[in-house]
């Protein structure tokens, strides 16, 4: 029996705006097991990002609770790494500066954190770019830095909020392969958000289909296909059709 790393019980989030009360998350129950790659899949922009933020501690739930490794989540922390859709790299730091930021903030010695950062920079395929600034990198490269930066802190879980959403199709396929390669080498519990069914099926151990605002769990699919997955294999296409039919349609 694998142990449960992330447990969301009855999580709700409501915002008070000038237009009144808005329920963004509605009673979500979710568990994620160790080293599982769970994809939160659903249409639209609202809800899923907030759910990720709540799980990462960047926002607080108004109802229910989230525990990671048994501890209640209240603030962001190094045990929960986040990879952002906008990469959120620190533009005045080099690649090395960004990747080693986490260990540096925690007081790890220069020698040790440099070694660690170098390992992850190599892992994501960016060796040679340690002294480049983010403004000089392509979208795909920037996101690799984001992944390396989150990994370098050696978090227990990683949250990825549509990290490849801003990339062109070609780069996106490449990054999906890269992520799989990285993940196979450094296994981690990952919660991945996307609205792209191909991406979801390519990456996931389990797909959790979410509804749009207010977001809640609609249904789950366990994906048992062997990796690396084939986008055009019959089982892949069959699942794709099935899940696409289930998802809420919104323009």
């Amino acid at each position, binding site marked *: 029996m694998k142990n449960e790393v992330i447990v969301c019980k009855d999580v709700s989030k409501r*915002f*008070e*705006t000038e237009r009144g009360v808005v329920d963004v998350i509605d009673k979500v129950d979710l568990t994620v097991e160790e080293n599982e790659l769970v994809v939160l899949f659903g249409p639209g922009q609202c809800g899923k990002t907030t759910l990720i933020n709540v799980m990462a501690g*960047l*926002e607080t739930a108004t109802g229910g609770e989230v525990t990671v490794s048994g501890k209640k989540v209240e603030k962001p922390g190094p045990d929960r790494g986040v990879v952002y859709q906008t990469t959120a790299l620190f533009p005045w730091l080099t690649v090395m500066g960004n990747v080693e930021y986490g260990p540096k903030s925690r007081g790890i010695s220069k020698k040790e954190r440099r070694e660690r950062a170098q390992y992850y920079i190599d892992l994501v395929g960016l060796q040679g770019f340690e002294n480049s600034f983010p403004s000089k990198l392509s979208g795909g490269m920037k996101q690799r830095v984001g992944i390396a930066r989150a990994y370098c802190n050696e978090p227990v879980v990683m949250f990825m909020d549509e990290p490849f959403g801003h990339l062109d199709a070609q780069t996106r396929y490449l990054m999906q392969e890269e992520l799989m390669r990285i993940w196979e080498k450094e296994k981690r519990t990952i919660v991945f958000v996307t609205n792209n069914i191909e991406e979801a099926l390519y990456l996931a151990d389990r797909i959790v289909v979410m509804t749009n605002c207010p977001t809640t769990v609609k249904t789950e699919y366990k994906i048992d296909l062997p990796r690396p997955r084939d986008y055009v294999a019959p089982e892949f296409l069959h699942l794709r059709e099935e899940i696409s039919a289930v998802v809420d349609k919104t323009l």
Partner: protein
Amino acid sequence: MEIDEVNCMKKKNGGKYAAISVLSVALFIFVWWLVSSGLGLTTESTLPGPDVVLKTFIKKLSDPAPDGGTMFQHIGSSLRVAMSGYLMGVVIGTPLGILMAWYKKVDLFARPLFDLLRPVPGIAWIPLMIIMFGIGMTSKVVTVFLAAFVPCVLNSYTGIRQTKDVHLWVGQTFGASNWQMLTRIAVPTSLPLVMTGVRVALGASWTTIVAAELLASTKGLGFMIQQARGIYRPDVIIAGMIAIGAIGALLTWVLTIIEHKVVKGVKA
């Protein structure tokens, strides 16, 4: 200090901070009073208390002593000259900036000359204007014009230049002429920056008229405070400074409202 506070939490604490602000201002005025009128640590000819300044301010509104004009007369004089130069600067500077940005030929020849003019602060022109036009209104109006002209040109120039190529291409596919593209696409896009220039020019105009009056004038707020210095009346000086600040703020406020009305919906 948490940046990500929920909106409703911010509102709850807002009252506490507003109270602190009020207290802070009250304390400031109290300390001023204490140091001057209260304990007499400063004399009436160096730092008069807020009560003295207030009394002088009110009195000066209708009293022509000690410089020959009431505060209202001075305000009127300063405003009149400032507005004349300002409007001229806006009316000439804004279209010039637009033309410079749109027509390359104009840019190539006009911009170097403008760049020569630009680093000279408005006030430096005053003596030259006085030699050429005398102490009267003309010299000051021309100086204010120069001070207002520069920011108008600069901002409208930048405003036109940041028109997106994509928008212009859309215009071209609709068969728009060069002139139409300028007036229908570029100028509307430049509106936020044009308004910024108009606002900056207003501040520059007001500052320049005060400076001009400090140097050579027989009326106006600048003249009023300069005279008051000569006869050791800091209460009149401070009253004048308050008037200068208040009117400057008022003008800016009015313009900001106009700016918001004009710029509604136009993305900066």
